[in-house]
């Protein structure tokens, strides 16, 4: 499974939204109905799944699905 697919799978599960809603530009809070605690939990799930750590400052910059994908790829040393 690609990183994009895994990220979307986690978001669908955590935020109880549909795959269709998970377009790259979708903003977690504004479009997918997440609140600040949802976001923390979502990022924790990403950390566990990809074996990375995301600091609170870095978390502030992740607003959309594309942001998350780009960030994870960077952390894993892959080209975005």
């Amino acid at each position, binding site marked *: 499974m690609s990183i994009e697919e895994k990220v979307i799978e986690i978001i669908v599960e*955590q*935020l*109880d939204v549909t795959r269709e809603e998970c377009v790259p530009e979708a903003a977690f809070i504004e479009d997918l109905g997440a609140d600040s*605690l949802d976001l923390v*939990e979502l990022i*924790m799930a990403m950390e566990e799944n990809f074996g990375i750590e995301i600091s609170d400052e870095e978390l502030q910059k992740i607003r959309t699905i594309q942001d998350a994908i780009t960030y994870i790829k960077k952390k894993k040393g892959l080209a975005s």
Partner: protein
Amino acid sequence: MGTVNPVGNNVDETWAALCAGKSGIAPISKFDAGNSATKIAGELKGFDPLAYVDKKELRRLDEFIIYALACADMAMKDSRLVIDQGNTERVGTIVGTGIGGLTTIEREHTVLEQSGPRRLSPFTIPAVLPNLAAGQISIRYRAKGPISCPVTACAAGTSAIGMAFRLIKDGYADAMIAGGVEAAISRFGVAGFNAMRALSTRNDEPEKASRPFDRDRDGFVMGEGGGILILEELQGARGRGAKIYAEVCGFGCTADAYHMAAPPPGHEGAARSMEVALKSCVMDPATVGYINAHGTATPLNDVYETQAIKRVFGEHSKKLAVSSTKSMTGHLLGGAGGLEAIVAIKAILEGVVPPTINLDNPDEGCDLDYVPHRAKQMDIEAALSNTFGFGGVNAVLAFRKFRD
């Protein structure tokens, strides 16, 4: 009214089961009770949380909150109370519990120990705090009136309804969503009560284990769930054509000031709380026909509660029907007062007293009419619900038949 408990997932199912003398006690399935001294409890059966919360909420709410939302959902639908701009600030929420999110504490504590603090769910605290049952209900129904959560142990549900009753009486609210819930059947919960030697260990006969007033009782059986009532000020209720089940007319609360868990001989604190409940509504004790007893089936409670009842009612105590539905549901702890208020009200409405099952040989000192084995028909004008909690809390509600 709304309830989820070991014998039913709604009021009608529950009432039918209680009148039929059905037990909800069985071997524990929520966790592996292999090394536990007590291996039985009253768990909910066939309860579907997704009927009341969505998948996201299911993950972030402790069971006790989900039970509270289920009870509130049924009660609100039953009452057809509409909360809107006009009355949002006049409707409040008080839901008590003994300990709140115990299973969440256990689970997240394990995460803390095994994986460190960074792995704790951000929803841990909101899932654990006892007042989040009231909190989540008030959010869902936009009830912006008074909000609280009494944590008076086994009396919490009664305390909640009593406090809600007084708030309406004193003009702080026109309606209140009130009751109690508990979801403490966990390794820690069972082990904690076992350590006090408070629980029955009759593991080989689960349905016979809860034996209030019986000579061979050996402690209480834990139950989970609870009950919620919608209380309303009369004019408003009449005005909107509400279905009125009964009148909540009195509430008594006193402290034993004796021992952290045991009642004193004679349980005078319990007697005083029954007296206060009756006096507060100027009710002659002889009006009471039924008492839903605290009746936990612990060695001390049952005899002392009997003595307290006799002190309050004198000769009339021989005419009372006193039953402990804990014989069937087990002890719902903070949820007991919520469920048992509903039982007392149903008894008045239906003119039927649910039985105390397993009462094969009443103990010495237990000589009232506990309605053994089988429910009985009885025209009831008024009923009391007794609940007594650790810390020496005594809370009693008085209900009266409603006549228009």
